[in-house]
């Protein structure tokens, strides 16, 4: 897509920002990326350059998960060897093609998802047993161009939406998402980490914190908390408001499912912040997956807050939100 920014020499922007002593956003330094690769361009010299992940706190987890290059054949093999996730009943009502189109469009428009997107065929092949794609696949363009901004009309219909979303999976996935034995050593790595979540007591489960998370989301991003998901995209919990009005968040929840499905396919998160965000032009809102490392030094303990935030998204506000999240969880601030 011929986006306005495609006319800009992003390397020059990155270089100029560096010369001003300003940090360089990841997106401004991506032009040298090889087709199909997330590999960033060489960092320009100068103070404040944050082309390298370690100097950009919220990019740190990208490095941990190896995002920065296309998966190697070994990676692909490793992905294939991952245990097939359990089927989740919500998926039976998904219109997979529509969300895939949305992801692909988002990538074409300059989203940071510059890795290979599973084709519809591949995605359908990888669906859990019992999952079937809906017969027709609405195009995302029709959503973007719709005069009617009501989600109920523009989003695919989901006959089973009367059932509270994610409800059927909650008990099972809480167990599945239990991380390997947690470490008693404090995490010393930079990035988005927290102190260990107590195994017992009233704070034993992140899901117990949903009300706190919801308040933080509203307070710091004016957004809506959609759900808490484990690293495989399985929902752990969701706010009562969502259960009360599932239709309101239908399109976003579909997209959460699709995005996390991609994570599961690659065996790791696609990225963080803007990397794991999808813009809905029709609704002038963003869907973001906010990562939480539930147990320090345990990269398998990633969980995600699925948050719907107003557009345009402000990284500064998200930063403050993450700081507040850290504080609420009792974690350290690097």
């Amino acid at each position, binding site marked *: 897509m011929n*986006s*306005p*920014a495609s*006319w*800009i*020499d*992003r390397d*020059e*922007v990155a270089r*100029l*920002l560096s*010369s*001003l*002593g*300003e*940090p*360089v*956003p990841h*997106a*401004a330094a991506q032009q040298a990326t090889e087709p199909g690769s997330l590999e960033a361009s060489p960092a320009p010299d100068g103070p404040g350059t944050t082309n390298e992940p370690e100097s950009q706190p919220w990019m740190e987890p990208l490095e941990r998960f190896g995002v920065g290059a296309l998966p190697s054949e070994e990676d692909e093999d490793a992905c294939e060897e991952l245990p097939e996730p359990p089927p989740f009943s919500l998926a039976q009502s998904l219109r997979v093609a529509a969300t895939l189109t949305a992801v692909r469009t988002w990538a074409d*428009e*300059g989203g940071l998802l510059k890795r290979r997107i599973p084709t519809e065929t591949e995605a359908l092949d990888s669906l859990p047993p019992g999952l079937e794609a809906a017969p027709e696949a609405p195009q995302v363009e029709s959503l*973007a161009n719709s005069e009617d901004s009501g989600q109920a009309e523009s989003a695919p219909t989901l006959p089973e939406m009367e059932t509270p979303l994610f409800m059927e999976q909650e008990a099972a996935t809480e167990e599945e998402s239990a991380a390997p034995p947690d470490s008693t050593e404090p995490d010393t790595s930079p990035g988005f980490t927290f102190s260990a979540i107590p195994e017992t007591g009233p704070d034993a489960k992140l899901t117990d914190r949903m009300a706190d998370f919801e308040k933080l989301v509203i307070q710091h991003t004016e957004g809506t908390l959609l759900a808490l998901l484990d690293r495989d995209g399985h929902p752990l919990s969701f706010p009562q408001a969502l259960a009360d009005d599932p239709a309101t968040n239908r399109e976003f929840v579909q997209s959460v499912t699709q995005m996390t499905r991609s994570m599961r396919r690659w065996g790791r998160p696609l990225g963080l912040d*803007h990397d794991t965000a999808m*813009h809905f*032009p029709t609704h*002038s809102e963003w869907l973001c997956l906010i990562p939480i490392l539930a147990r320090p030094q345990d990269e398998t303990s990633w969980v995600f807050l699925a948050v719907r935030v107003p*557009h*345009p*998204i*402000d*990284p*500064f*506000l*998200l*930063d403050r939100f993450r700081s507040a999240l850290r504080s609420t969880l009792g974690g350290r601030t690097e």
Partner: protein
Amino acid sequence: MNHLVIASQNGGTGRTTLSVNLSYALASRGRRVILIDADPLGGAGFSLSTKASTAQGFYDLALDRDIDRVRVESLLLGTRLPEFKFLPAGHAAQQPAIMDRLDQEPDLQDRFRAIFTAASDTSLGPDVVIVDTPAGVRGLPYRLMRSGSHLLLPQLAHPLGLRTLPVMLRALAQLRTGQGKEAPMIAGVVLTMVEPGVPVSLEVQREFRELLPGHMFFDAQIPRDREFLQASQAGVPIALLQRHPSATAFIFDQLAAELESRLALNNPGHENEFTRLMD
């Protein structure tokens, strides 16, 4: 001293609208403000009064090498807010030959800086001197940018605005190269002419925020709104257009509050002084 120069590489970004309304918002919040119309077109003056468009002002001062506080003070025009005074562009600004000659003066930016400093020393004791500039980042606008202590950069939420962003960045880098630590600081970028319901505008906003670090942006952004036309026609800041100001008018209050924070205008130790609503 806070000499805030409002500059953009494009025309039509709403610099003058921003200058006038931001100045009014700051003054209505109790800040003492002098708005200098350094755009030879005199847009800010034309936005406020017929008197302002015919009075002596900034470029008349710039013709002199001896610039002092008393002369600057004598040219300031009052407004209905005692905290808000205005220095119009002046007669010289309307004389192309004089402006051409002025533009050749090697010490022009020193004169500009002297005027800003003198304005800061006037009896009003302004918290901030706001300078509206002509479009562009070469010649006169560039010299005005060099003379300020801070830069406020309205950016057009339009593909053209985004595509010309490197032009502004190059100018900023040149300022930094030429002046080092003396270069003006970037107070922030404010997106203007934002059209919330238009996908292209949304896309441009998103791409702006991907290209520049988040802290550079003000939370407030200025929409394209017909009320600005009405306010311009009436010759008033948008907050004075209606007895009960519209939502758009309050955007400048938010911008003013953010700017106060960025310029550290808040008085330390006074943040917790409040008056109870009852009892």
